[in-house]
């Protein structure tokens, strides 16, 4: 297995960042099996340029992730693999650590304000963590092209489903037996007063969470879209509680996978450091901008962009 990490030679200092092919040329040149074409000039970035480039790119990814509501992880992996030619396992590792950082950062406020349901979070974390453990063991053994295909498919699904994002909310008035045993019903603040809600269909929600955890482990995404489906549509938890609880769970789920990637040596600090700062800063700016924007139009534009990225991912996997 050949992994080239942090090697971003340019074809030309000013023009485009190399694709996988040119790195392959370089490998062949080094190992002497094929001659490097004469017109190919390879320029190596300094560490400063590398950090700045990653910082700028991941700021954009964080901004896009926060404005589209899909999270930075969905964009970081295609950015690193398609854009910068990083080995997909290193890209997934970097994305996982970023997911922990953004989840922890936003949970600080959401948990304190009483939106996240800690009991629901903990109960479902048993599902997502188990899924993530299975997923990460599978993911580290899958060949790269399968990961590209799967990532493309999941990204396509998320992009299409955000087109049809209708905010119909159904709320149950009666308690469910399993929810009562696990004391899941709780309250959350609405306009200054506490509003009570009842959790429904726990087993189905639990099953979807195992799947969401597995996808998170395989692809290094937060899989917030799937978690919100389970919490919001199936378990009929209010939207604001669903998104914040999903966010709360994401950190623990990603920590399971990130620990395995760490042990395998796939976490590269020089790659990850600028990405964390960029994505965290990008999502803070995104959250500030969000109320001032025309959400519907914005969502449509981002969804179309994501669809293009998804097609590119699938194409690279074929």
């Amino acid at each position, binding site marked *: *297995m050949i992994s080239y990490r942090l090697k971003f030679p340019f074809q030309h200092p000013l023009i485009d960042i190399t694709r996988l092919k040119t790195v392959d040329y370089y490998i062949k040149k080094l190992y002497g099996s094929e001659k490097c074409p004469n017109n190919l000039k390879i320029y190596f970035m300094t560490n*400063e340029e590398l950090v700045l480039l990653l910082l700028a790119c991941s700021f954009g990814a964080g901004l896009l992730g926060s404005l589209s509501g899909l999270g930075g992880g969905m964009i970081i992996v295609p950015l690193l693999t398609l854009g910068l030619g990083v080995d997909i396992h290193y890209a997934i590792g970097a994305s996982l650590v970023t997911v922990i950082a953004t989840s922890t950062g936003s949970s600080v406020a959401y948990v304190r304000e009483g939106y996240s349901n800690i009991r629901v979070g903990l109960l479902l974390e048993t599902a997502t963590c188990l899924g993530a453990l299975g997923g990460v063991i599978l993911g580290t053994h899958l060949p790269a092209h399968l990961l590209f295909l799967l990532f493309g498919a999941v990204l396509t699904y998320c992009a299409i489903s955000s087109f049809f994002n209708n905010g119909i909310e159904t709320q149950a008035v009666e308690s469910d037996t399993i929810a009562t045993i696990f004391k899941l019903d709780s309250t959350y603040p609405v306009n200054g007063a506490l509003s009570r809600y009842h959790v429904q269909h726990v087993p189905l929600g639990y099953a979807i969470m195992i799947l969401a955890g597995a996808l998170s482990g395989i692809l290094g995404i937060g899989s917030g879209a799937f978690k919100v489906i389970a919490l919001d549509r199936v378990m009929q938890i209010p939207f604001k509680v669903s998104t914040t609880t999903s966010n709360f769970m994401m950190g623990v789920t990603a920590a399971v996978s990130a620990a395995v990637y760490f*042990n395998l040596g796939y976490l590269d600090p020089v790659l990850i450091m*600028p990405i*964390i700062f960029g994505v965290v800063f990008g999502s803070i700016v995104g959250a500030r901008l969000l109320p001032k924007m025309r959400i519907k139009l914005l969502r449509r534009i981002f969804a179309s962009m994501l669809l293009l990225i998804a097609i590119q991912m699938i194409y690279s996997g074929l």
Partner: protein
Amino acid sequence: MNTTDSKKEQMEITLSNILRGGLILSMLCLGIGAIIFLWQSGSQPENLEIIVGEHNHLNSLQIVLRSIISGDSYAILQLGIIILILTPVLRVATCLWMFCLQRDLLYILVSSVVLLILLTSLFINANFGGQ
């Protein structure tokens, strides 16, 4: 406000503080590491070492701590990443402790299961000898 609500609030504030502490500590390490890294080797070209089946050697806490003492900026960055990964683990451990205080048997069990999976992943080497 009744007792269960005040208990809920108490727990939320503690958990929020733990998450904030972990995040600040980790960002501090990453920030300091970044400054030292750019100071020492900012203008050097990114090394071209094409790695064949070789991974980051800084993959255990002992190695990272030993490297920090010898002044390796990579290791300070890596410590920041370790703290970030351990923050959710500490959060779950705190949940377990708080449910112990409340004598909530069911949730002691639930948080123990989550903690067990987390600890398994911290010590697992998913490579299974293959490479």
